[in-house]
C-alpha cells in the first residue's frame, strides 16, 4: 500500500506518495519530477542514478524512497546557485567532458562528493572516486581533468 512521505531534495520539501518498494530514484523522477538522475542498470553498477544523501554518494536505484525520509538529498538540480552553474558543471562544459550526457549528473555528483571530502585530490584519487560511475563515451580522461580543474577553481586559484 502506498504511503505518504516527505523527501527533502535540494533543500525543498516534496510530499510524495510511494509504494514501500519504490526506489529513491523512482520517487525523485516520477513523483518529485526531477529528471536529472538517470536509470542505467538499476542494480548499482553504473552510477547514473547517483545522488548525495546526508553527505554520502549513493546509488538511488538501490535505496528505497521510504529509507530516505528525513535525509538531505542532493541531485544535480541542486548544484547551480542563482542561475550560476557549479564550478564542476562549468568545468565539464569548458573541458569537453560531456558527450551523450547520460552519466554526467551522477559523474558530477561523484566529483562533488569527492571534493567535499578531499578538496585537492590526485588524479588517481579522482579515478577511484568515479570508479562506480560508468561513461561509455569519453574514456574518462576529460572527466578526470574537469574534476581536477574544478578542484583548483574551488580552492580559489586560477585553473
Amino acid at each position, binding site marked *: 500500500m502506498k504511503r505518504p512521505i516527505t523527501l527533502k531534495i535540494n533543500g525543498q520539501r516534496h510530499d510524495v506518495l510511494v509504494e514501500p518498494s519504490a526506489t529513491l530514484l523512482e520517487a525523485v523522477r516520477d513523483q518529485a519530477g526531477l529528471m536529472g538522475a538517470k536509470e542505467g542498470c538499476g*542494480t548499482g553498477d553504473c552510477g547514473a542514478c547517483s545522488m548525495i544523501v546526508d553527505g554520502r*554518494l549513493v*546509488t538511488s536505484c538501490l535505496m528505497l524512497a521510504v*529509507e530516505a525520509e528525513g535525509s538531505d538529498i542532493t541531485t544535480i538540480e541542486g548544484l547551480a546557485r542563482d542561475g550560476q552553474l557549479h564550478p564542476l558543471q562549468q568545468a565539464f562544459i569548458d573541458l569537453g567532458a560531456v558527450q551523450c550526457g547520460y552519466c554526467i549528473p551522477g559523474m558530477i555528483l561523484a566529483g562533488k562528493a569527492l571534493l567535499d571530502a578531499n578538496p585537492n585530490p590526485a588524479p588517481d584519487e579522482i579515478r577511484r572516486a568515479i570508479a*562506480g560511475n560508468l561513461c561509455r563515451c569519453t574514456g574518462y580522461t576529460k572527466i578526470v581533468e574537469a574534476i581536477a580543474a574544478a578542484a583548483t577553481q574551488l580552492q580559489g586559484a586560477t585553473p
Partner: protein
Amino acid sequence: MKRFDYAAPASLREAIDTLRQRADGVRLLAGGTDLLPQIKEGGLWPSHVVSLRRVPELRGISFDPSTGLRVGAAELLSDVAAHEVVSRHYQALAEGAGIVGSVQTRNMGTIGGNVCNAAPSADTAPPLLVFDAAVVIASRDGERQLPLSEFFLGPGRTALAPGEIAVALELPPPAERSGSVYQRHTPRKIMDIAVVGVACRLVLAPDESMAEARIALGAVAPTSIRCPDAEALLQGRAPSVALFEQAADAAREASSPITDVRGSAEFRRELVRVMTARCLAIAAERARLLSERTCR
C-alpha cells in the same frame, strides 16, 4: 520492483518481534546493495522487508585494548575502512572493507550485510577470519556468539536461524607485534568481484618466531575458509621466504575452487599459492614495522 510490505523498527527488540511475527517471506534490509538487486533481478520476492536502518543497537564501532574491537553489524563499509583504530590495528579489515564495490556501494553496504549475504567472494570475510572474529547474534531468547569460522555454511547460507539477527562483529585485541593484510585478484582494479582473496595475519614473538599465524581465503571454496594446515607450518618458526612458499603450497591444497566466468579452478589455485606467499611476506613486514613504532 516487485511489491513488498515494509517496516522500520526503532529498536532491536522491536526488530526481533517484527521478524518473528512475519516469519515467512521476510527479509532483513541493511544497505540494500545485495538485497535490492536480488529482488530486482535475482528471483527473490519477499512479502515483507524489515529495515535495520533505525535500529541503534546495530550501530557503533568501539575499541578497548583489553577486550578488542566491536563493530555494529549496520556500520557502513566506508566507515569501517576509514576508522582510525581499524586502519591501524586491523589493517586487513580496513583493506577488505575499503575495496568492496564502489564509493556508492561502501556508502550504503554494511559489514553485517557483507557477512550475512555470505558470498564466497565477500571481501570482509577473509580479514574477519584471520582476526578470529565472532558474530554476536540476537533473538527473542537473548544473545549468542558464534565464531565466524562456524557462521558460513555455503554460498548465501549462514548459521543464522529464523528469527535471529546479526548484531555485531567482535574481534579480539591486537597482539603487540602483529601485521595483517588483505589482497584480492580482480581483472579490474575496482568495482569488481574477487577471483581470489587472501588475508594473512602474523604475530611475532620476541625471538622473531611466529607466535601466531592466520591465513584465510575467499572465492576459492563454497565459503571463505581458514587454512589450518598452512598455519600450522608457520607456528613457532622464524619467517622466511622458503617457509612462506611451503605454507603457500599448503594453502593451495586447502582451496577447492570452481571454474566460472571469473577464472578457471586451475588459475585460482595458482593464484592462491602466489598471493598467499606474497601476503605472508607483507604481514611479516608490517609486524616488524609496527614493532619499531610504538604500538597503541
